[in-house]
């Protein structure tokens, strides 16, 4: 094997030697067949197409056969929105659903509809597509009437054919537009179809993707290949901020199909012609790293959070004068502190991406929830023009937020840039658990004062959460390791839903934005709202108990929101709730109880109420959630079965997070790097879930990917209180913590 050490030089797609580019060392050995044969250009090249958000052509195309293509910037992360988007477009255009194809998250083809997060896909992204389709429909009706020589008002459309309502010859969409452009600005006032005429929206349509997924015919990101593609694995630092001091791959060179390394700063990757060669090399290469032990002591995490420098305080809600109200003489006061552990996303498929550069243009295939943002981030990292970077979404394993997909994409982009060759990067399990960004630790303090009739005089909550830089992006790990340009990491809008829906006369809700947090923060399903609702709705339960009032009655009494009240009443009926003032008496070793929680998401959208039934083993402290009842109102429902699937998933995933999950770490790095050290809920512990959907076809559709999760932890905490009298104020509710809380009583 010949060893080539690179020299400064431009990247060339045709050269078979290797370069030292931009300070990166690239060493490879005997590349052999992987550059033979013609290089494959990005084969999704399409004619120039607008991606403008205000253009119908940004979102829709209709070909000569009347087939509709929807271009969606929001992507299906396993939540079923591909099908939902198809339903929305098919309905508004009045075409059969099977005539619609959805292209997702391709920066060259799809409008930038923002990151697929925050339960916004349907309510924002879907509504943009609906409005574009409505604009198209109106134009097609007018054009059809003109071609048929009849009055506009006399025609209608059915199955993509514009025809006189009275009957007679029609003209189909394919003939009317036939692959041409609409050249229309989306009309925000275009008349929408009356929901009473819906035949596709609101129906439990089977998901488009499932047959291929259950028969092994689906191409996930992890299955995606390019010709001549190398396989890479990233060699991780010994500690989070270690410096790479030396490396030696002489033993790797004895491995068949080993290619070489790419090193830049503290970024080190090994390359193989086969996947197994890359894995074997990553386990064989010798490295020395500097010591680093800058993480806080996990056993004192909450002291660390409480003592972290506050960069600013912010009032998130202010009604009356809470400070004065809390000082009311003879008032009954309630205080509590809560905390919520650091969580990892825990995708079942570790992150994976493929990148290649052809003629100076980088194409990156990724399961990213944010291809448009990823494009900007990769361009910044590599000092490229964003126009020279294209990111294409390929569905991966569910990510539940900003996990490692974007980092794997950046790994692939950097290696492709340094080698000039197509590269696939697959993270290993320890990469995903150890190095994806984390949901930050969250700490709360609460105070309330009550009068002798159980009325709340004042409510104050404080949350300690990492500060938000200007740009909503999580830094690319690759760029951090390689000392390349990158953003400061943003934790997401984690202040959401800390403000409360209740009509107390004096309320103050304060965010203490912290200057530091131990791990690269990011959004994980229901970011902030999960933690905030755990604390809010647990404390509501504590205050209701102090007032001696049934938790349901207490909420209804303090809500001035008929839609919320209707939801709570539907929930009570679903679960056959029996009023009670405080906990029930336990008997034997197992105590049973039920708890309730409620949210109006961000105070402006989806309503969810939940009741949990639990069994607590008083000896072991083990909690089993046996049943969840959920009432859900997200306005107009696009696909009720898809919605139920999301609600069930929210419950199960969040029961796992509430009872079991907690990142562990030593002073140097994450130590919970597999499913043994970071376990999640298994089948035998999964609760039954009963769902009551409240459909409001004439209302705006709101999101459902997150809101149900928000109510799960407090419902469980309140159920444990009901069963045992113990308050669980620290997630996860491990048996040890439950035992300790019971002993405290």
């Amino acid at each position: 094997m010949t060893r080539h050490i690179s020299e400064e030089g431009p990247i060339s797609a045709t050269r078979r030697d290797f370069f030292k580019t931009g300070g990166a060392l690239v060493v490879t050995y005997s590349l052999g067949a992987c550059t033979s044969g013609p290089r494959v250009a990005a084969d999704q090249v399409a004619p120039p197409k607008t991606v403008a958000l205000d253009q119908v052509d940004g979102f829709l195309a209709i070909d000569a056969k009347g087939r509709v293509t929807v271009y969606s910037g929001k992507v299906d992360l396993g939540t079923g929105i591909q099908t939902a988007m198809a339903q929305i477009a098919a309905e508004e255009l009045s075409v059969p659903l099977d005539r619609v194809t959805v292209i997702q998250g391709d920066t060259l083809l799809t409008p930038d509809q923002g990151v697929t997060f925050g339960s916004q896909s349907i309510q924002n992204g879907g509504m943009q597509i609906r409005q574009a389709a409505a604009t198209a429909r109106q134009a097609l009706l007018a054009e059809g009437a003109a071609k048929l020589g009849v009055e506009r008002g006399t025609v209608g459309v059915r199955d993509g054919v514009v025809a006189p309502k009275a009957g007679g010859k029609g003209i189909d969409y394919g003939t009317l537009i036939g692959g041409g452009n609409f050249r229309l600005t989306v009309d925000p006032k275009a008349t929408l179809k009356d929901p009473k005429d819906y035949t596709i929206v609101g129906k439990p349509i089977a998901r488009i993707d499932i047959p291929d997924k259950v028969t092994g015919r689906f191409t996930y990101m992890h299955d995606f290949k390019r010709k001549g593609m190398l396989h890479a694995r990233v060699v991780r630092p010994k500690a989070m901020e270690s410096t790479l001091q030396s490396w030696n791959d002489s033993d790797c060179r004895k491995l068949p199909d080993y290619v070489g390394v790419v090193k830049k700063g503290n970024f080190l990757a090994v390359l193989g012609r086969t996947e197994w060669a890359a894995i074997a090399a990553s386990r064989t290469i010798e490295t020395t790293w500097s010591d680093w032990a800058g993480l806080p002591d996990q056993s004192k995490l909450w002291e660390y959070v409480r003592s972290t420098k506050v960069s600013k305080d912010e009032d998130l809600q202010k009604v009356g004068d809470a400070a004065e109200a809390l000082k009311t003489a003879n008032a009954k006061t309630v205080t509590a502190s809560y905390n919520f552990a650091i969580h990892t996303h825990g995708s079942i498929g570790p992150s994976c991406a493929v990148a290649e550069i052809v003629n100076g243009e980088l194409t990156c295939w990724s399961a990213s929830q944010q291809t448009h943002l990823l494009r900007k981030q990769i361009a910044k990292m590599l000092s490229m023009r964003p126009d020279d970077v294209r990111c294409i979404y390929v569905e991966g394993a569910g990510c539940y937020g900003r996990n490692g997909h974007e980092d794997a994409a950046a790994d692939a982009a950097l290696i492709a840039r340094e080698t000039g060759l197509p590269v696939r990067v697959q993270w290993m399990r320890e990469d995903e658990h150890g190095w994806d960004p984390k949901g930050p630790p969250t700490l709360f303090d609460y105070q309330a004062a009550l009068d002798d009739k159980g009325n709340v005089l004042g409510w104050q909550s404080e949350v300690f959460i990492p500060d938000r830089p200007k740009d909503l992006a999580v830094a690319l790990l690759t760029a951090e390791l390689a000392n390349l340009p990158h953003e400061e990491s943003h934790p997401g809008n984690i202040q959401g839903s800390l403000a409360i829906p209740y009509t107390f006369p004096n309320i103050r809700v304060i965010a203490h934005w912290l200057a530091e947090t131990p791990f690269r923060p990011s959004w994980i399903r229901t970011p902030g709202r999960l933690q905030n609702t755990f604390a809010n709705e647990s404390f509501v339960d504590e205050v209701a108990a102090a007032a001696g009032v049934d938790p349901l009655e207490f909420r209804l009494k303090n809500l001035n929101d008929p839609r919320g009240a209707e939801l709570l009443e539907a929930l009570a009926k679903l679960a056959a709730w029996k009023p009670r003032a405080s906990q029930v008496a336990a008997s034997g070793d197992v105590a049973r109880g039920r708890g309730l929680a409620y949210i109006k998401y961000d105070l402006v959208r989806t309503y969810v109420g939940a009741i949990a039934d639990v069994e607590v083993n008083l000896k072991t402290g083990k909690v089993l959630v046996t049943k969840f009842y959920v009432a859900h109102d997200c306005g107009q429902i696009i696909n009720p079965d898809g919605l139920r699937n999301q609600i069930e998933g929210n419950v199960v995933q969040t029961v796992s997070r509430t009872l079991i999950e907690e990142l562990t770490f030593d002073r140097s790095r994450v130590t919970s790097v597999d499913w043994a050290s970071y376990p999640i809920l298994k089948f035998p512990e999964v609760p039954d879930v009963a769902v009551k959907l409240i459909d409001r076809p004439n209302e705006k559709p709101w999101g459902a990917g997150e809101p149900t999760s928000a109510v799960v932890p407090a419902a469980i905490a309140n159920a444990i209180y009901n069963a045992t009298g113990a308050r669980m104020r620290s997630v996860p509710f491990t048996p040890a913590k439950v035992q300790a809380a019971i002993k405290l009583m």
Partner: protein
Amino acid sequence: MKISLNVNGKSVTITAADPQMPLLYALRDDLGLHGPRFGCGLGQCGACTVLVDGSAVRSCVTPVVSVDSKKIVTLEGLGAAGKPHPLQQAFIDEQAVQCGYCINGMIMQAAALLQTNKKPTDQEIKAGLAENLCRCGTHLRIVRAIKRASEVTA
């Protein structure tokens, strides 16, 4: 080293530079199959499950040399979209998928379970799949799908 595999009823020979390479990589990279999935490489999650001589096996920790000449069935071998296996049809009927990354393991594990217990109770299904992880929380639908399949095939 040349290794003979019998995959989904067909005999194939692969050249494995390292006979200890896990079966998963032979199936995915050498044979181009999409059913078995890489999830952990540790035998902890079940996403890579295949049937070897009828038993559910974690292909990510099974050296390819150890299955030389054995009968391997992957998700593709159970059935196809036009002619799905009763389990696959039941997963479609129950819409028992979210991201679907774990579903290969769920179906293959269930296929093995139904060979030994044709009419499992919900509790037996849950116990049988206890070491298959799902992160989306599709568990309840998966149990219903397996129950439905057992009613069709029993």
